[in-house]
């Protein structure tokens, strides 16, 4: 509901989305759209949509877009950016897309410090395909492909992508944020805007991981989903800035 209180930015089309009630994808779209709007770069923005619940985000952003194959968005974005160096190119990807099938693509785009922004939506599950285990699913988390709970001995622990990518020299900015309450939403907005500012200045790769809910596949009400996120995801996926030139200086 929160997003309905404000005027819709021109970077977002005024049409209903297909997201489930209580899903954070819509809020995150909104923050991305606002950042692009506020930086005044709608005209030169080119987005890359993933395969996942946000596959149709090319219908929602009022921005030129390309729909990538599952996990390949950073490679597609690289191709676009190398053709239009002046463009503000970004990818929007889920955790299955980015941390599983597209792990190589994101690592190498980050390592090259490709001058793009990645918005990484981590909801600890495969939403679109009906709630299977993701590389970010928590130990013990019950999903349709981990019906007895994720087992550490056979599946390992969930990948902390922000921490992992921060070990690379390439990235200029890496932050993990959440949109579970107004204070965090403001921080999320600031981080996303920062990531796009770096993009506009052509400084290099920037990624914002946004912890997100999937009430439908978690089998919870929207309210329960937010508290599950706070209780289970926040301890394992701590919020914060993992890499920033300013921090380094």
């Amino acid at each position, binding site marked *: 509901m929160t997003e309905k209180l404000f005027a819709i930015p021109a970077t977002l089309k005024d049409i209903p989305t297909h997201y489930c009630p209580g899903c954070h994808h819509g809020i995150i779209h909104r923050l991305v759209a606002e950042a692009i709007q506020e930086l005044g770069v709608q005209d030169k923005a080119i987005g890359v949509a993933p395969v996942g619940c946000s596959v149709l985000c*090319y219908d929602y952003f009022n*921005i*030129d877009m390309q729909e990538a194959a599952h996990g390949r968005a950073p490679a*597609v974005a690289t191709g676009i950016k*190398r053709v239009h160096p002046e*463009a503000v190119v970004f990818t929007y990807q889920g955790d299955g897309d980015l941390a599983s099938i597209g792990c190589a693509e994101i690592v190498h785009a980050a390592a090259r410090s490709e001058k793009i922004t990645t918005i990484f939506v981590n909801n600890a599950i495969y939403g679109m395909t009906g709630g299977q285990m993701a590389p970010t699913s928590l130990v013990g988390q019950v999903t349709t492909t981990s019906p007895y709970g994720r087992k550490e001995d056979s599946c390992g622990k969930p990948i902390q992508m922000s921490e992992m990518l921060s070990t690379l020299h390439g990235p200029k900015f890496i932050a993990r944020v959440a949109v579970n309450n107004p204070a965090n939403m403001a921080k999320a907005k600031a981080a996303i805007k920062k990531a796009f500012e770096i993009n506009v200045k052509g400084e290099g790769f920037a990624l914002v991981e946004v912890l997100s809910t999937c009430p439908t596949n978690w089998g919870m009400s929207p309210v329960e989903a937010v508290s599950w996120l706070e209780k289970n995801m926040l301890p394992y996926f701590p919020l914060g800035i993992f890499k920033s030139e300013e921090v380094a200086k």
Partner: protein
Amino acid sequence: MAEKILMKGNEAIGEAAVVAGCRHYFGYPITPQSELIEYMAKRLPQVDGVFLQAESEVSAINMVYGAAGAGARVMTSSSSPGFSLKQEGISYIAGAELPCVLVNVQRGGPGLGSIQPGQADYFQATKGGGHGDYHNIVIAPNSVQELVDMTILSFDLADQYRNPVVLLADGAIGQMMEPVEFREVTAKNIEKPWASTGLHGRSETNVINSLFLKPDECEKHNKHLQEKYAVIEKNEVRYESIHVEDADLVLVAYGITSRIVFSAMEKARKEGMKVGLIRPISLWPFPYKPIEDASAHAKAFLTVEMSAGQMVEDVRLAVGRTKPVYFYGRTGGMIPNSAEIYDQIVTIMQAKGGK
């Protein structure tokens, strides 16, 4: 007229791409095409182009998707195992109708196979390779000069039809040195109003996409693709036909194999045997008609490939059941020699009662 220079096949493809106006290349090293990626690494920066060594063939083809969708003339190249990895991306490129040139310098397979020349990726190139109903335009040169001319042609065809074009070469032509001439080309400046470039004042967004959630819309898109393929089949069949008019035996071969078959044919002609050659240049669309026409007077056909028999299926389709279609192939990176092929010719001619 431009002067002739001696060039290696793989490098000639690279220079031809530059001449055609290609300024973006994404690839991953693999034998026997590495001279091409190395040539692009050296050459593209000299013309303000972009060379990028991708982390895998999967990434390379998706970079091609992004660059083609952004409106650029773009190329990638690989050899058999690497080309297999590109198939997912090629299906998306075909679905989203993105123009690009994809070079496969074939080697022996399956699996890691061998690094010597092969022609066993014919099915993959001409029948789909990736998922869904789609076609690449497939062009098969047989000399270094043709690598040049057909690389340039491939970029034009790709833009004209908004379709991926596969330049299907092999390790032999890729590695061979021959004199080539770069004719003056006027790079066609094709408008791409569909490309995702950023709005820049445009009111409707441009979306590069192959997803149609509603099945009726997906079928409509498929119908559109099939209509386009029908136009290509009508307009873009290319082949060479030598001594076919009076031939009792028609040989069919493409790429490097066609040159070896040609010399076997010459020898047979000198011995008085009426042997001809049809060389498909476009493997898709395949020259069914000239082969079918030849079957009216020819007594038999012999297809020669560096495979266990792939193109021969198309030759059989063209000929039907009226005349026998024989096959001779070498696999795994072995190149047939003209004496082997000559022996095949003699055996068939004797059985058919020809001289």
